[in-house]
């Protein structure tokens, strides 16, 4: 399969800071590619470079067979870009916003515009001012505006940030439909459960690519490790003692649950013996299957937001 987007040694520096550092990526048609990372990892900078909004400091990319720098104008008519912030005209109606963005590309028939509003559940608000829509519908409209011209490659910068779970699921259905239709989707997110839904993904940390592949391949990076969880009341002294235990890589506390990533230096028996010494424990450690979040935290030492 030929890549619809291949990124080669892409770098963006702002002053002395490398926001994106020598990044390589390949995206394929019909697939959703997820770029994950904590805030300020360089996700937005990457997507903005690839959509032709800012210029790379060095490196190159081939977008739909065209050179990112030299052929950016031709590229722009064949990609879609959904910015992180709503880029809508609040004083225009829903259908006026769509008509405007559609008119920037080779003509998008009225009938298609109407059909898209219908398909994305926006037809009922066609005459409402965009500024008056709820967050979820603003997001839908942003997406419709960015894909009305039927682009082959769509960049979506945190398309589900601040969106309720039901709407988020609906949006992902949309993404799958687009991918099924042969489009390439480039999505940034910091939701781990969304990462699981991507065909392929990459973790970014401080501008560096720290993981790259299918979700299974990425989980495979922790093959030699084990993940355990147990429940306990919060006890800072116990956490501190755990951290000193040899073989403990990550301690991830969430509410009453503590999740540990441990390597071969710590056996299950040793862990059980350790936990027995602390009176606050309710129950034995349970071995868990490795999640993308485990990998992510292990690789970056960062909690995903």
């Amino acid at each position, binding site marked *: 399969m030929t890549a619809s987007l291949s990124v080669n040694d892409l770098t963006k520096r702002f002053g002395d800071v490398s926001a994106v550092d020598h990044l390589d990526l390949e995206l394929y048609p019909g697939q959703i590619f997820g770029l994950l990372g904590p805030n300020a990892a360089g996700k937005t900078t990457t997507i903005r470079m690839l959509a*032709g*909004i800012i210029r790379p400091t060095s490196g190159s990319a081939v977008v739909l067979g065209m050179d990112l720098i030299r052929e950016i104008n031709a590229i722009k008519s064949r990609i879609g870009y959904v910015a992180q912030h709503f880029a809508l005209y609040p004083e225009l109606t829903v259908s006026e916003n769509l008509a405007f963005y559609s008119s*920037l590309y080779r003509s998008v028939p009225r009938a298609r515009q109407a059909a898209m509003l219908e398909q994305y559940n926006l037809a009922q608000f066609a005459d409402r001012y965009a500024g008056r829509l709820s967050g979820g519908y603003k997001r839908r409209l942003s997406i419709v505006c960015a894909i009305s011209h039927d682009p082959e490659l769509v960049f979506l910068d945190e398309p589900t940030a601040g969106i309720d779970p039901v709407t988020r699921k609906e949006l992902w259905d949309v993404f799958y439909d687009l991918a099924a239709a042969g489009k390439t989707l480039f999505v940034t997110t910091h939701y781990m459960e969304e990462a699981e839904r991507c065909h392929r993904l990459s973790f970014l940390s401080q501008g560096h690519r720290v993981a790259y592949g299918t979700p299974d391949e990425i989980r495979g990076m922790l093959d030699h490790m084990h993940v355990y969880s147990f429940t306990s009341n919060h006890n800072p002294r116990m956490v501190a003692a755990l951290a000193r235990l040899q073989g403990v890589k990550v301690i991830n506390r969430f509410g009453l649950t503590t999740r540990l990533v441990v390597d071969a230096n710590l056996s299950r028996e040793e862990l059980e013996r350790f936990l027995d010494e602390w009176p606050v424990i309710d129950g034995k450690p349970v071995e868990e299957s490795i999640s993308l979040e485990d990998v992510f935290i292990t690789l970056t030492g960062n909690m995903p937001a």
Partner: protein
Amino acid sequence: MKLILAMAKKEFLQLRRDPRLIGFILFFPVLLMILFGLALKLEPENVRMAYVDNDQSLFSNLIKTSIWSEGYFTLYEVDNEAAIIRDIQLGKARAGLFISSTFSAALFENSQPSVQMYVDGTMPSLATAMDNNKHSITDDSVTNDMYFLDPDADNVVIPPDPFVLDVEVLFNPDKKETWFFLPGVVGVLIMQVSLILTATAVVREKENNTLEQLIASPLSKTGFIAGKILPYVIIAFIDFYLILLLGAWLFDLPFPATNQGPLFLLALAYVAGLIALGVAISTISQTQQQAIFLSIFFLIPSILLSGFIFPVEAMPGYIQPVSWLLPFTYFVEIIRGLLLKGNSMSDLVVDYLALLGFATVFTWLSIVRFRKYLD
């Protein structure tokens, strides 16, 4: 009270994070204050006066010297009376003086000759000041030596003035202030529409985050700017003709049919220049606040230093270059010429070229400044 202070403190903090705006707030008022303090005087000074002295006598010299020493006028000689009027029409002179060849002969006969003075009526402040001051030209210090009465005569009457000063106001004989101001008001209103609307229009795309979306689309830089300004060009043109026609209808402002072509060209050059300047301002501003501040910084000197209210000639020589840097100065000169003085386009060619020059420079500036990339 505490809450008010908290709010005020937050507001100050926000201001402090916008160093450019702070610069505008502190720097511009100081600059404008100094500029206006030096420049603005209602009393005219150094007004150019064309004269013809066919008498060439001690007495005609006395009158010229007296006018010169008033300090209002800088005199220069022309060939004949028609040349005086022509120079005033072209704006080379704002006033004229004609002394006929029979002046001193008439003085000897006590027949009270008249001296003809011309004033540019498109500058009412000047015309009014002349009216108020013309007595100083005919006061005793000048006229004492011009009496040729027989001192031994029986009936010593209080002599009339030895000569009279005839002041003729050209181009606006009634010194209508509305005629003086209205043509310029057109320019001020157009300036508001084209400058402030365009300056904020582009910044608004930035603030709305829509600029980023547009950059990601195939819309070209030229397409963006052209499409952005087209509505404001149309609005500015509608305003231009609306105000002129209203002026003609309500205030009898002349709207000469013969000058429609030049008027249209004036509107075109002026609007193009201002809209391009608006785009340039928009590209250097990060926020609408900054854009509005910059526009106003341009608007106020335009109104005060352009000759719209105060004659440029009355400003000190080192301030005048500022006037020549304002498109509005040329607009005022052209529109008064076309509407009031009956100038043809060839009379105003320098002013037209200046306006076109501004349009070119500002367009170039806005294209250079407008980036296709956000960084």
